[in-house]
Each structure stands twice: as C-alpha cells, then as structure tokens.
C-alpha cells in the first residue's frame, strides 16, 4: 500500500488536528522545544544557565543568567528542569507518528531518497556531503528565524492564522517573500 490523501481530505484532517489541540490543551507549536532540548544538553555544562531557587517561603523560582532563558519568569528553565512535559513529549511523538504513517499505509520514502530528496539531486547533484551541509544550514536558518519570530509554521502560521492572530500573517509574509524566490532560483529543474 502506498497511499496519500488528496488536498481536500488532507486539509480537513490537518485542520481537525490543529482544532483538537487547541480545544483540548493549547495551540500546537514546535520550535520552542528546540530551545528546551538545547537547555537539556548545554545547561548541564553551565549550571548558572538553569537555576532552580527555593525561596524562604517555600515557593520555587526558575532563573537563568541568560536573558532569553530568563524570560517569562524562567519559563524555558522550568520546562528543561522539570520532568517530561506535554510539549516535549508531543515533539518526540511526532517522530513516532511519521514512522507509523510510513510503515502502515505509506507513502514510503523511495529508497534513493532516504538521504537526498529527488528535487535536490536533480538540481544540486548527488553529493552526500553537499546535501547534509545544505540541510544543516537550512536547519540553522529555520530555527534561528523561528526563535526570533517567536514561532514557526505550526505556531505562527497554522495555529496563529487559525486564531486570526496578526502575528501569523506577518510571519507568513516574511517567510514567503524569501522562500519563494529562493526555491525558484535554486531549484530550476
């Protein structure tokens, strides 16, 4: 079986997932979890980046010497210090969901595309190193940009525009103003 869905079915089901998330918990967002994962790795190397402080009256505060991690009363520190939480589990589960979809029902990723997508190969060649470097730089740009913007495709564009947030529209304008010419210029074939 190697089945994909048409655009209408796809749109309905994808829309229902975003609706379900906001109805049950809160709007879907992914890019914050990259910061949490980073703090799980790097905050252990520099303990002053993630401090759990118990005050005299027993209340717990989370602080960081880094101004970004210290934002919103140390929200990121709290998430990184705390046990597994909704947002982090959500992102890990996305990996499992993708695996299940490819395994049961498909579409399967074509064997010659497990490392290099077809459109990349046709335009930029079959060099493994070139694609991995390209992917690394792309990953750097999307997360640096998403953190500057305060969200990514899921948080700003999908969840944001669903709620008619102005920020979702601003993000979409910034993204497509650059992504469309980049794709047209780089992938000509």
């Amino acid at each position: 079986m190697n089945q994909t869905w048409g655009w209408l079915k796809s749109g309905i089901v994808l829309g229902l997932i975003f609706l379900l998330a906001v109805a049950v918990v809160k709007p879907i967002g992914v890019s914050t979890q990259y910061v949490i994962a980073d703090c799980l790795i790097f905050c252990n190397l520099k303990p002053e980046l993630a401090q759990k402080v118990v005050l005299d009256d027993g209340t717990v505060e989370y602080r960081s010497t880094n101004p970004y991690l210290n934002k919103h009363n140390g929200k990121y520190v709290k998430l990184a210090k705390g046990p597994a939480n909704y947002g982090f589990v959500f992102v890990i589960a996305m990996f499992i969901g993708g695996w299940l979809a490819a395994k049961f029902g498909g579409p399967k990723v074509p064997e010659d595309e497990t490392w290099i997508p077809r459109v990349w190969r046709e335009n930029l060649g079959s060099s493994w190193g070139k694609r991995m470097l390209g992917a690394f730089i792309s990953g750097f740009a999307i997360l640096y940009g998403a953190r500057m913007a305060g969200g990514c495709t899921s948080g700003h564009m999908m969840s944001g525009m669903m709620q008619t947030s102005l920020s979702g529209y601003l993000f979409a304008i910034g993204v497509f103003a650059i992504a469309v010419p980049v794709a047209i210029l780089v992938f000509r074939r």
Partner: protein
Amino acid sequence: MIKQIILGLLLGGAFGFVLHKVQATDPNKIVGFLRLTDMHLAKVILFAIGFSSLLLFIGLATGLIPPTHIHVKPSYVGVIVGGAIFGIGFGLGGYCPGTTIAAWGAGRRDSIFMVLGGLVGAWVFVLTYGWLKAHMPWLFEPVVEINGTAAVTIADTGNPKYPALVSGMPGVVVAGIIAVIFMAAAWLIPDRIRKID
C-alpha cells in the same frame, strides 16, 4: 501530569502521522509549492487554516471551547525578519522545524542534519538574544499595539487578554468571512502555477 504526557503522545503522534499523510514531510512537495510548480500543499494549508478557524470560532461562540485556550503571539518587527530568515532555510532545505521530525521518523535521514542545524540555530539565538536586544532594539518594537499589547487578533476571540483589530462585530462573523476566503482560495488555486520543463 500523566494525563499531559498521554495527551502529548496522542496529539503529537497524530500530528506526525497526518503531516506524513498530507505529504508535508516531502521536500519535493515543499519545494514544488514554493517554486509554484505543485500547489498541493498550498491548497492543503489554506483549507486547513480556513476549516479549523471556522470550527474554532463556532466553538468559542457556543462556549464549547474555552477562550482561555486561545494563545496569541505578539506582533513585533522580529516576526517578519525572523520569518524571512526562516524562509531561506525553508526554501533551500524543504523542511519546517516540525515536518523534519516527522520526516525523520518516516525515513528521510537528511532530517538528522536539519534537526542538528536547528538545535545549533536555536541555541545561537539564545546566546545572541541579549546582543540583539541591546543593538537592534527595533526588532522588538511592536507593529501594532492595542491597550498596551501587541498580541492582537483580527477577529474577537472573547479572551480579554487579546484585543481584536475588528471590534464591534462578533468574532465568529469576522473569522467566518476570512475562513470562507481561505477555503475558496484552496479550491480555486490551480494544481500548478508555473511549469518546469
């Protein structure tokens, strides 16, 4: 606590599954959309936004969905600039922060490098945030501000924390009009706008 973890597993799992099924995990499809040669994902995204928005605002109007679940992000200049930086990697790599994780699960292993780049990019932002705030404060200036907040919506959600640009009209009407435009656009956009020979 355990309820949150189970919800995260179920909703995240469903989200990853659906991202793959709608082919948002396929860089060929993302690039096809961005270079306007295969508009499948454009139609999917437009319809998903319109459809979910319509149901969300009906849910808010009928009280089925509590307005406290609404979470609006502030509109500041960095949203547009950050979006543009995002656009470079999106156009070149063909993945988003979320789709690359589902794609990795589905077997697209270049996602490993996308995720590694993402972890480094997010951490570099954490480290440069203080410098940006001091030297490029305009990035953090609000684009629009109502009642002292930049977290604004177009339609009234009923959550007083987030003022609406269009006031004096029920949110479900304003959002409903926008939703119909989005769903109609999904319907009307051709399968391809450009052709590649």
